[in-house]
Each structure stands twice: as structure tokens, then as C-alpha cells.
């Protein structure tokens, strides 16, 4: 039997396993068949973990045989961004400096996915240390967008996004510091969520900017996003910023509809010069569709978010320069040969191991934190953060959720923005304020422009994930987005058999 993962979802997999239509082993092999078929072109993966997936599949198949109740993600092939530790894998952050680093403990979010019965198929390519918006800043070569192989999948979690879009995994996890889950979600036509800061433990993820980083899921559907959130959201005493709240069922209100919900279109962000008019049009049309379903749609402004990008390009690099100080060539990672002394070892190991964007951000952050500049840059950026939080508080007094495009454009060409860091940074203009305020947001596909997916960003106040997922589900129903890229559809047609 040939299983096409693009046509399966989490519930269908669980159902099929318990009815013994297929085995977890067959599901794992379906993922590896797809990876074998497309990954030479797409390059979602840095490492494929056949043995780990087969061992996990065997455990699930034994549960099926024993008639045990199946855990929520039983038999679901999943992929993890390569900054998440998992024993039995290398965790490289797509960097030369960690090229051979072997995980010695598990990331909590990864462990929760595996304890829920998921099958780990591999570790996904990313911008080095999550510095980028295109996955071109990988020491191991770029990932390509399954919708158009000449284009980027977004970044920094581009491999995690492409893996789900191409059906190489049913779910994946990424990390989002300034948009690194949502922007690739938009560019690859996947559902991509950044939870409220503190919802998901950061233990075991290689830190970029500790006050902004948050782990979240990629999936084909909003329901699967909610199902994954149910698994990964939990208090963890290994992360001091993890919030201790009662467990929520994020699937409970998905189908409640949007009648009576107050939805705010963020007018000043929508009017930004760099926003593609066709992208803007899809977003406005979607808001109109929600109004037809009974939502009260209005307009709102977030004037301080114009300072979000500059504040982020101080806070992010400042925290990163501090976090990346640990890569010193002594305890782990690349070590320069024949160092004369410790200083020589530091200077050369780091310069040899880090790629150009990492060096740029470490330099920017070190400068911003250095004597005489701290108040003007880092201190000022933290005050801007307060202004942005106040803007959101005012907006959420009048609206339940806020809408913007996730990205100002659809997927851009590989190389198009690689030489201009400032232009690249602009692709995160809509996503960055969300990280600065610590609020949750989801990107959901809301249509196409010239055959490329457009993402709608739905933002809510702290811990309002259920509400934004409810709106996302209404968007999914209203737009009827076709989530399978043409290259994958052709693959299915060529092979004929599809299990639906």
C-alpha cells in the first residue's frame, strides 16, 4: 500500500492505526519515501533519522497490537528544527561551529511530541542560529520552497515549513524570535503558530534571544495546529520563564465561528509602502469574508510598531551576542587548530565557525551593549518595547483579535535579498511587534498571488490562543485554501495510489 502523507492528518492517522488500515512503520516509511523523492531538490533536512523513527513506530505498533489507548500524536511523522536537542541526533543550528555537535539531552517540546507517540523523521535546515528570513544563511545550503523551487521558503524555520508543505512530515516544530515560524508558514502555505511567550518551554533549544524566543508548530490545518499545541504547551521547571497555567484544550472552540467577535484590521501596518498590493487585497478580502460570517470588523492603528524593526535589531542581536559567547571552542563545537594560547583559540575558533550573518549580529549586539552605547541603544529599545505593548493593550481593549499580512510579500527568489541585510530584515516587519509584546499569533493561508501562498497573521492578547485559532479555522473554511503544492500533487498523480 502506498500512503500519501499529504492527504493524511493527525486524527485520520490515529483512526487508521486503531482500525489497522496501516501501521506506524508504514507511516514512517511513507515519510522517508517522500523525503527520498523530493528532498534532493527541496533540502528541508540536515539529518534524516530513520532508526529513531522506526524505533518510535515499533512502540506505537506494539500499543496497537496490545489494544492500548493511543496517545494524541500516535504514528504522526514529525520533524524538528535543527536548533532543538534530541539524543541520538546532531544539533547543528545549520552552523559549521556546531556541525558535529551530538545532543546529550532532549529539548522539552521535542520530548513531549515523542511521548505523545510522534515519529521523529529528521532535523530541519534553518538560517544559521535562526538569523535570517530565507533559510539562505545555512552553512549546508539553502532550502527551496516546494511551491516554486527557485524561491525561498522563508526563515529562519524554512526547513520545518518546507517539510510540512512537501508532505515529508505531517507536523514540525520551529522557533520564532521575530517571525521565524510565521513568515515561513506564510511563504509555504502552512499553518504556523507562535504561542504566548512562556507557553512552551524553551529548555533544550539553542538560545537566540532569550526574551523573544518561542517554540511553535507547523501543520497543514488549523485543527492539527491546535492538537500540537495541546501536546507542547505545559509548565516546565527547567525553564524559569515557563508559565504555570492549567492545561487547555485548544481544539475545544475551533468550530465556534466568529459571530460577534471583534476583529481589527491594523490599518497603518496594512498601508506600509513595502506591502505588495495583491497581498493586501487577499487580507482585506478575508476580513470581509469574516464580516459576512458575523464578525464585527473594524480598523485600528498601532503607531508605535513603526519602531518595532529598529528595536528588534538591537534587542535580538544584543541577546544573541551574549548567548553565543558560549561557543568558545573549548567545551563543544569547532576548535581552531594549533592555537598559541586561549585568546588565539577564541578568536580563530569563532571567526572560522560562525557564518557571515552570525558574525554581523554578534558584532551589532556587542556594539549595542558596549560601554557608552548601552543606554542609547539597548535601553532605548527596551523602552520602545513598552510603547508597543501599550499600543497592543489599547487595541485589545476594543478588539478580540487583530489582522495583518504575515509577510509583506509572497516567497521571493533565492538570492534576491541575500546581499542586502536591511531589505531582508523588512520581511519581518509584521511579525516582530508580536515577539516584542510576547503575545500569540498564527499565520494561516488565505489565498494565492500568482500561484504562491499568502499568509494572514491573526494576533491575540496574552494566552488568547484559543480565540486566534477559532478565527484561523473560520479563515480556513472561508478561503478553502488548496494546501498541496503542485510539485507534490504531480508526485501523487505519478504514483497513482493515494490513501485518503
Amino acid at each position, binding site marked *: 500500500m502506498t500512503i500519501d502523507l499529504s492527504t493524511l492528518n493527525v486524527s485520520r492517522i490515529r483512526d487508521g492505526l486503531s482500525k489497522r488500515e496501516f501501521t506506524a512503520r508504514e507511516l514512517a516509511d511513507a515519510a522517508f519515501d517522500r523525503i527520498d523523492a523530493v528532498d534532493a531538490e527541496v533540502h528541508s533536512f540536515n539529518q534524516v533519522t530513520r532508526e529513531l523513527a522506526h524505533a518510535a513506530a515499533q512502540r506505537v505498533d506494539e500499543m496497537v497490537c496490545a489494544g492500548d489507548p493511543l496517545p494524541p500524536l500516535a504514528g504522526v511523522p514529525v520533524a524538528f528544527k535543527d536548533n532543538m536537542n534530541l539524543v541520538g541526533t546532531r544539533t547543528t543550528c545549520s552552523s559549521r561551529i556546531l556541525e558535529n555537535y551530538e545532543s546529550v539531552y532532549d529539548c522539552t517540546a521535542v520530548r513531549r511530541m515523542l511521548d505523545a507517540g510522534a515519529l521523529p523523521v529528521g532535523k530541519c535546515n534553518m538560517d544559521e542560529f535562526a538569523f535570517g528570513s530565507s533559510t539562505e544563511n545555512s552553512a549546508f545550503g539553502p532550502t527551496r520552497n516546494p511551491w516554486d523551487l527557485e524561491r525561498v521558503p522563508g526563515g529562519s524555520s524554512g526547513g520545518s515549513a518546507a517539510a510540512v508543505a512537501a508532505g515529508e512530515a505531517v507536523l514540525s516544530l520551529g522557533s520564532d524570535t521575530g517571525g521565524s515560524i510565521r513568515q515561513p508558514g506564510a511563504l509555504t502555505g502552512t499553518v504556523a503558530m507562535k504561542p504566548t511567550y512562556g507557553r512552551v518551554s524553551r529548555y533544550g533549544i539553542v538560545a537566540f534571544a532569550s526574551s523573544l524566543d518561542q517554540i511553535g508548530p507547523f501543520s497543514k490545518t488549523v485543527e492539527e495546529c491546535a492538537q500540537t499545541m495541546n501536546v507542547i504547551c505545559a509548565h516546565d521547571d527547567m525553564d524559569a520563564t515557563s508559565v504555570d497555567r492549567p492545561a487547555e484544550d485548544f481544539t475545544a472552540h475551533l468550530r465556534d465561528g466568529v459571530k460577534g467577535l471583534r476583529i481589527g484590521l491594523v490599518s497603518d501596518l496594512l498601508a506600509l509602502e513595502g506591502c505588495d498590493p495583491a497581498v493586501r487585497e487577499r487580507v482585506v478580502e478575508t476580513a470581509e469574508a469574516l464580516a459576512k460570517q458575523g464578525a464585527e470588523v473594524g480598523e485600528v492603528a498601532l503607531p508605535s510598531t513603526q519602531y518595532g524593526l529598529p528595536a528588534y535589531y538591537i534587542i535580538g542581536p544584543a541577546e544573541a551576542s551574549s548567548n553565543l559567547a558560549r561557543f568558545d571552542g573549548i567545551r563543544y563545537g569547532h576548535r581552531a587548530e594549533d592555537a598559541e594560547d586561549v585568546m588565539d583559540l577564541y578568536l580563530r575558533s*569563532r571567526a572560522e565557525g560562525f557564518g557571515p550573518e552570525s558574525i554581523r549580529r554578534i*558584532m551589532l549586539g556587542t*556594539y549595542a551593549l558596549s560601554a557608552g552605547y548601552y543606554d542609547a541603544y539597548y535601553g532605548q529599545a*527596551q523602552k520602545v518595547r513598552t510603547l508597543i505593548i501599550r499600543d497592543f493593550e489599547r487595541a485589545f481593549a476594543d478588539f478580540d483579535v487583530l489582522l495583518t499580512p504575515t509577510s509583506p510579500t509572497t516567497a521571493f527568489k533565492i538570492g534576491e535579498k541575500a546581499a542586502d541585510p536591511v531589505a531582508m*530584515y523588512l520581511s519581518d516587519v509584521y511579525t516582530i511587534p508580536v515577539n516584542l509584546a510576547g503575545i500569540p499569533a498564527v499565520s494561516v493561508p488565505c489565498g494565492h498571488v500568482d500561484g504562491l501562498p499568502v499568509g494572514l497573521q491573526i494576533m491575540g492578547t496574552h494566552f488568547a490562543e484559543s480565540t486566534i485559532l477559532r478565527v484561523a479555522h473560520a479563515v480556513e473554511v472561508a478561503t478553502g485554501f488548496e494546501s498541496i503544492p503542485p510539485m507534490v500533487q504531480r508526485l501523487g498523480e505519478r504514483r497513482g495510489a493515494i490513501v485518503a
Partner: protein
Amino acid sequence: MAISEEQVRHVAMLARLGLTDEQISSLGHELNDILLQVEKISALDLADVEPTAHAVAVTNVARDDVVKPGLSREDALRNAPEQQDGAFLIPKFGG
């Protein structure tokens, strides 16, 4: 507030990055381009605004003081580029 080549060299030393002259020169240009964008916020009058370090503040987090297994020495050393007698090996330091 343009950053000079001398400052770039100083920052590279603070960051422990042994960069080439070519890298220093191109980083000077790139950092100035980025800092130009950042000037937008340096000019704001925010004297009365409190800074935010964490958007979702949790305070006084402490877990119960219970002994749990940590990394074994073997695991801690697993990725060491050089080790000796159960310790990380480093080149000589100081004068």
C-alpha cells in the same frame, strides 16, 4: 553616529572574533547601514517610559530543592574538542 573602523576592531575584540581586514571593512559599512535604521529610535524622547525586559513577567521562580540526576561527566565531555583526565583541555593562558 557612524561607527569607525577602529571601533569595529574594538568590538570584534570584545566579541572574540578574529576577523580579517576585509571583514572589518565590509562590517563597518553593513553596521552603519543597520544603525541608520536604528537612529529612528535613538532620537525618541522616552525619558518617562519604563523599559520592558520580559513581556510576560514571571517573578521569583524557584523549584523545589530536590536532587535530580544531571549530565554525567561522560556526556558533558562528549563534544569536547580536546579532553584529558576527565576535564576539558585548553592551551596555556596568561603571560
